[in-house]
């Protein structure tokens, strides 16, 4: 019995020893990575300077066009005239009907679903009032978290309504009539366009730092020949990968805090939803980007290739296709499909929802799940593809 106990004790000891051994190796590796980072002042400056600069530069909106923007109708009157006007609005080609709402309470819900960018509300007895009193009012309520789209939808709708009034006034009625559209923005009442760029910048910066930096640091080892020695060493691929990932995970997270703090101090942008949920989602996205970076490094032989793939392959599509600048619904279907495999597209929805609309996980669980799956796929692929030998 005693012997048994003893051997069990020593087995545990060995496990502890091995663990300490492996940990030491691993921590030694992580320490070395931090040295690389902190010794390279220029990269460090870019790491923290660029996000700040982008937040400030992108503080201005870029004008865009709309097409097939989702619009819901809340028709409290439901008469011939409202039906006609609704018809005219949707036949213009700019809008696409998402839903018919029944009451005011539905407005918030339909916005949070995300497809609807504006809701048009006809007041009670819209048609009757228009014929009897010569004036009626409708409201255009739009989603201010996308200020460009919101402004454009409002303007287009107003001009369609004016057009409609003119037509109606011509042959049918001699009296002058007036429909007064009342414009209202939800979520971003002052229509500060900076707001939409903060999530965009976070999305872009994180994927760039994480994917670019990790892929460059791994390919650098290949180029300088140090990877050969690391491979010959008892370090496991997973230790090398995690050792590379850890420092950047840490730095990127600091970057997120920095951007949030900056946008709060400079633009007074608060985080409407749960800050913990936001940070957790950011961590998920950082992990996803890091694993993507490792995947890039396994397919590129030189730093140049890694930089090229990261910049052209990630930055441009992120800017152009993720809905960062150009609304996805304006894109031809093919781009829509392309963008659906782009992780930033989902993260931008998540972060906008949390920061600007203040929604919780119930509205963004699908996007979160997609990101989790992507992370796992990338991680699996890179551990598999990370070679224990040279090719």
């Amino acid at each position, binding site marked *: 019995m005693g012997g048994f106990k003893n051997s069990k004790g020593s087995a545990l000891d060995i496990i502890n020893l091995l663990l300490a051994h492996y940990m030491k190796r691993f921590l030694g590796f992580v320490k070395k990575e931090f040295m690389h980072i902190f010794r390279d002042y220029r990269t460090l400056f870019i790491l923290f300077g660029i996000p700040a600069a982008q937040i400030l530069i992108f503080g201005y909106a870029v004008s865009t066009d709309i097409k097939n923007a989702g619009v819901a109708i809340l028709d409290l009157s439901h008469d011939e005239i409202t039906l006609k006007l609704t018809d005219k609005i949707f036949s213009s080609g700019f809008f696409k009907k998402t839903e018919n709402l029944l009451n005011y309470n539905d407005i918030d819900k339909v916005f949070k679903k995300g497809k609807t960018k504006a809701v048009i509300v006809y007041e009670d007895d819209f048609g009757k009032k228009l014929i009897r009193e010569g004036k009626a009012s409708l409201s255009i309520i739009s989603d201010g978290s996308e200020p460009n789209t919101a402004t454009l939808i409002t303007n287009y709708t107003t001009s369609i309504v004016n057009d409609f009034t003119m037509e109606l006034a011509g042959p049918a009625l001699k009296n002058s009539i007036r429909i007064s559209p009342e414009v209202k923005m939800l979520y971003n009442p002052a229509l500060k366009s900076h707001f939409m760029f903060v999530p965009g910048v976070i999305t872009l910066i994180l994927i760039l730092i994480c994917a670019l930096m990790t892929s460059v640091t791994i390919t650098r080892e290949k180029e300088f020949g140090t990877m050969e*020695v690391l491979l010959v060493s*008892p370090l496991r691929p997973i230790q090398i990968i995690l050792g590379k990932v850890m420092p950047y995970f840490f730095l990127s997270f600091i970057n997120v805090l920095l951007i949030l703090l900056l946008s709060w101090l400079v633009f007074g942008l608060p985080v409407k939803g749960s800050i913990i949920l936001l940070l957790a989602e950011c961590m998920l996205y950082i992990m996803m980007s890091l694993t993507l970076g490792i995947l890039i490094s396994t397919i590129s032989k030189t730093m140049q290739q890694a930089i090229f793939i990261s910049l052209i392959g990630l930055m441009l599509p992120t800017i152009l296709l993720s809905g960062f600048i150009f609304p996805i619904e304006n894109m031809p279907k093919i781009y829509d499909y392309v963008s659906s495999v782009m992780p930033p597209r989902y993260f931008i929805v998540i972060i906008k929802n949390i920061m600007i609309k203040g929604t919780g996980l119930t509205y963004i669980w699908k996007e979160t799940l997609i990101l989790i799956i992507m992370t796992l796929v990338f991680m699996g692929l890179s551990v598999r593809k990370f070679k224990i030998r040279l090719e």
Partner: protein
Amino acid sequence: MINVVESSDIAKSFGPIMALDDISFSVNESEIFGFIGPDGAGKTTLFRIITTLLLPDKGNMKVLGMNATTHYKELRKNIGYMPGRFSLYQDLSVEENLNFYATVFGTTVEENYNLISDIYSHIEPFKKRLAGKLSGGMKQKLALSCALIHKPRLLILDEPTTGVDAVSRSEFWDMLNKLRQYNITIIVSTPYMDEAIRCDRVALIQNGKILSIDTPQKIRAGFSRKLFTVKAIEKYRLIKTLKKNPEVMTAYPFGDSIHVTLINDSSDNSLFEYLVKEGISDAVIQEAEAGIEDRFLELMEKA
């Protein structure tokens, strides 16, 4: 005596290029074994197979008694490897590089300091300097220290003397010699024939094939013909004139003279007469002992 490396019929190709073609050799314990051959001969590929970094297409590579393909994890703990480009982190200091490699191999600098003290003492005064700022000779010494820090049983050095000046190269070979006392087997490659003499045994390698394996002395002795050195002021004219003579089998420039072999070994007198007749009257012809390079040239001509 056990064989530290035993290679049988190793072959490896990259696309259409046959990098290694049926390579067989064995390395004895604590010997310095040299692979001598030009760039592109296959030295690096062979070393990568020995260090488990590449898999051979065919053949069997046994290192330290273990199969290099299946036992790579165990082997990697016992091999010290210095790749062709000194694999140092340029942005880390001398000290930090050494410490890093020690931790990665699960040891400390203190533990094996005696092994590297001879080498490391040369660069220790500069231990705070970044590796990227060291001279070629110092980089070479640091890389060697890093490769030795975990006390490997087998040390593999891929062209450690390339790009390093003559004094440092000579010091480097002295250091390798001293490592024998620790029972470390060393496999080293170099494109420079004159370094062959510093090895216990050498393999001449060219186009993925081993031309000859033996001690440097025996390889030189393998030269099959009489060798003459011919000197004259106008070297270019001398070479052209020699090559015109049908009696001359080979004429290669070798530093300040031309190494000549003749179809008929005893015709050196007639060679002198021939040169005078061709207008080269200042020629000095001497019989000489063949070097490794002469033998290499002879083997290449046959191949």
